[in-house]
């Protein structure tokens, strides 16, 4: 909390409840550039709600969210990209009617400058920008090694490729912070390895906040962990510290520590 001047995301004492049920109770955490922070906890602990508050889908009853020294007040989801925050969705949230490259290009909406008139009249101002964005999107697809699917429709592609497309889209706005909502769900062991490398690679350019059930992945890539249970932070610190915390073990007691989620199981949630 004292780090608010140094940049990054600072979530301070957030409380929110739905219909009398407290979903988050005084939750605080921070993510700084160059850092991977994981949020873990049993189902219903409030992880996704936390993301939704940061993104502006849900308004907290109290508490503040500060990003790069500026407090986010009554912000809307679409303001986020411009502010430098990106988010991937738990499912993939790709648009079935757009090709992969168009999906990724749409991620650059916040940096696009061409106005309505230049788009309507097809002026160079608009078309030049389009080629620039397309170029950038193809580069990103190349970096994520899915360039060959650029002109395909995403919902016809394997799940892993859809997830990468979604990641590419989130990276298009060149964020300072990226929120990853269960990036590992539905991926095979080999794909997990690659994902881990990818996320660590992101660290050079931005802060990463992820919600994940897959403990091996979390433990291996996160710099810090925050553990939520029933809407409260019950532990935080390095992976080793958290693993050693008895409260965490209790929280997970009685339910399997989830390892690999299948997309099918996810679909039902």
């Amino acid at each position, binding site marked *: 909390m004292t780090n608010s001047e140094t940049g990054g995301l600072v979530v301070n004492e957030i409380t929110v409840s739905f219909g009398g049920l407290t979903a988050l109770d005084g939750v605080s955490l921070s993510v700084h550039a160059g850092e991977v922070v994981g949020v873990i906890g049993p189902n219903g602990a409030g992880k996704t709600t936390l993301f939704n508050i940061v993104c502006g889908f849900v308004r907290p009853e109290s508490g503040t969210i500060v990003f790069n020294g500026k407090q986010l007040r009554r912000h809307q989801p679409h303001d986020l990209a411009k502010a430098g925050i990106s988010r991937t969705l738990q499912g993939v949230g790709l648009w079935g009617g757009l*090709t992969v490259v168009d999906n990724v290009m749409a991620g650059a909406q916040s940096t696009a400058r061409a106005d309505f008139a230049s788009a309507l009249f097809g002026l160079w101002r608009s078309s030049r920008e389009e080629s620039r964005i397309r170029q950038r999107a193809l580069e990103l697809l190349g970096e994520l090694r899915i360039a*060959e699917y650029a*002109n*395909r429709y995403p919902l016809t592609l394997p799940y892993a490729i859809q997830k990468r497309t979604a990641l590419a889209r989130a990276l298009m706005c060149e964020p300072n912070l990226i929120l990853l909502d269960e990036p590992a769900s539905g991926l095979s062991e080999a794909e997990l390895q690659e994902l881990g490398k990818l996320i660590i690679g992101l660290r050079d350019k931005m802060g990463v906040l992820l919600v994940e059930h897959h403990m091996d992945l979390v433990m291996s890539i996160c710099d810090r962990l925050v553990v939520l249970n029933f809407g409260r932070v019950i532990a935080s610190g390095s992976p080793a510290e958290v693993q050693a915390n008895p409260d965490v073990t209790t929280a997970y007691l009685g339910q399997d520590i989830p390892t690999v989620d299948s997309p099918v199981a996810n679909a039902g949630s």
Partner: protein
Amino acid sequence: MKRFSLHSARRRARLYATGVVACAVVGTMALTASGPANAASVSTPGVTATSISLGATEPLTGVAANYNDIAPAMKAVFAWANAHGGVNGRQINLTIDDDQYTPSITATMTHQLVLQNNIFADVGSLGTPTQLQVQPYLNGLKVPQLFILSGCNCWSSSKYPYSSGLQTPYTVDGKILGSYVAKNFSGEKVGYFTQDDEFGFDAIKGLNMEIKGSSVVSKQTYVASTAAYVAGLQSQVAALQASGAKVVVLAAIPPFVGLFATTAATLGYTPQLVIDGVAGDPSAIGAPAALTTPAPNGQALLNGAITEAGGAFEDQTSNPWVRVATKLLTKYDSEVAKNGITGDELTGFNLGYLVYQALKAAGKNLTRQGLLNAIAADGKNFANSGFVPYSYSSTVHFGFEGEQLYKMSATATPITLPTGTFMGVTPVGPVYYTSPGAGPVKVWHSAQDKVPASLSSTA
């Protein structure tokens, strides 16, 4: 290995598809395209040595589809004429197009009649808004727009010499009803219930010429739409009731007269009703609920209502015109043969016979101007089934300017139609006539035109 790129295939596909669209557009055009229809050798459009081509746009479907039996009856008269040698040796071909009572479609269909069917004249088309839409167009091209089935004052205007109406102008309707009210209900509070368009406005014009302004206590309007049905007329009828009007003059289309009567019954409101000739036929009002539901005082709601008509009712079988029309239409109009004659079919018969007489009067050398001249010169003498002669002259482009008043009566012989049994009517007083302008309402003393022998012997 190079992958098949679906995208490029699709882009090509899109191009192909675009091409196919273009080709199809051409194809459709080419198929439906046709030159000006069988260009006549004579200079007058729509007239050949052996034929005359006429057109009409009618609401065969849509909100005014009630009137869709008029044009077939007109056509039946032409079939009769054609079977007896045509007019001056020419067969009459009538094209009836459906305009659904929608002005934009009227415009399209009228363009088609003029540009493609190459009509000589537009005759007996129905509707005020629909015909107003094409009035500038037809007059601009000097195509006669004759005998429009509408009582709008707008058809007799020096600006549009090629237009003329058939129905009694609504202002004349209003004047005749107004003079009756002034005479028989003097001192009573009067209310108006009128349609919110030219029909209502013109009728009010006539009413105001006869009824003292001070006795009119409430003027209510409605919009002729299905929406008004559902919301009902409670507010308007309640307002009339609240104003204490003892006499209500209705310038409304038949269904709304029915709705008015039903609503008045609900409110326990029993004014003397005076109904414009547009809804003068109880069977057209067609609301047996209104006719049969006992009002609080035990009387049928429309019982005793005053209305008006320009000619005999179809159930007055003793009238020679009704007899001859029924006979002719039974032979040439399958609908009449099946279900018997309606008031609208009687109108259609009259209309067809008017067109026939006008064409005949225009002579062998048929031109558009010649037709107009013939109507201006002889129009007054054309035989008709109405109670007064036609008013046509070089300056007056109205058909009828007279009405017989009637009383709807539960004791008169009821009208029986396939759609139900309706109360009958009995005549009240003499036939009146007047012009839409200033001038008194006068009594017409002469008898109805005789049915010409040429018609009665061949029908």
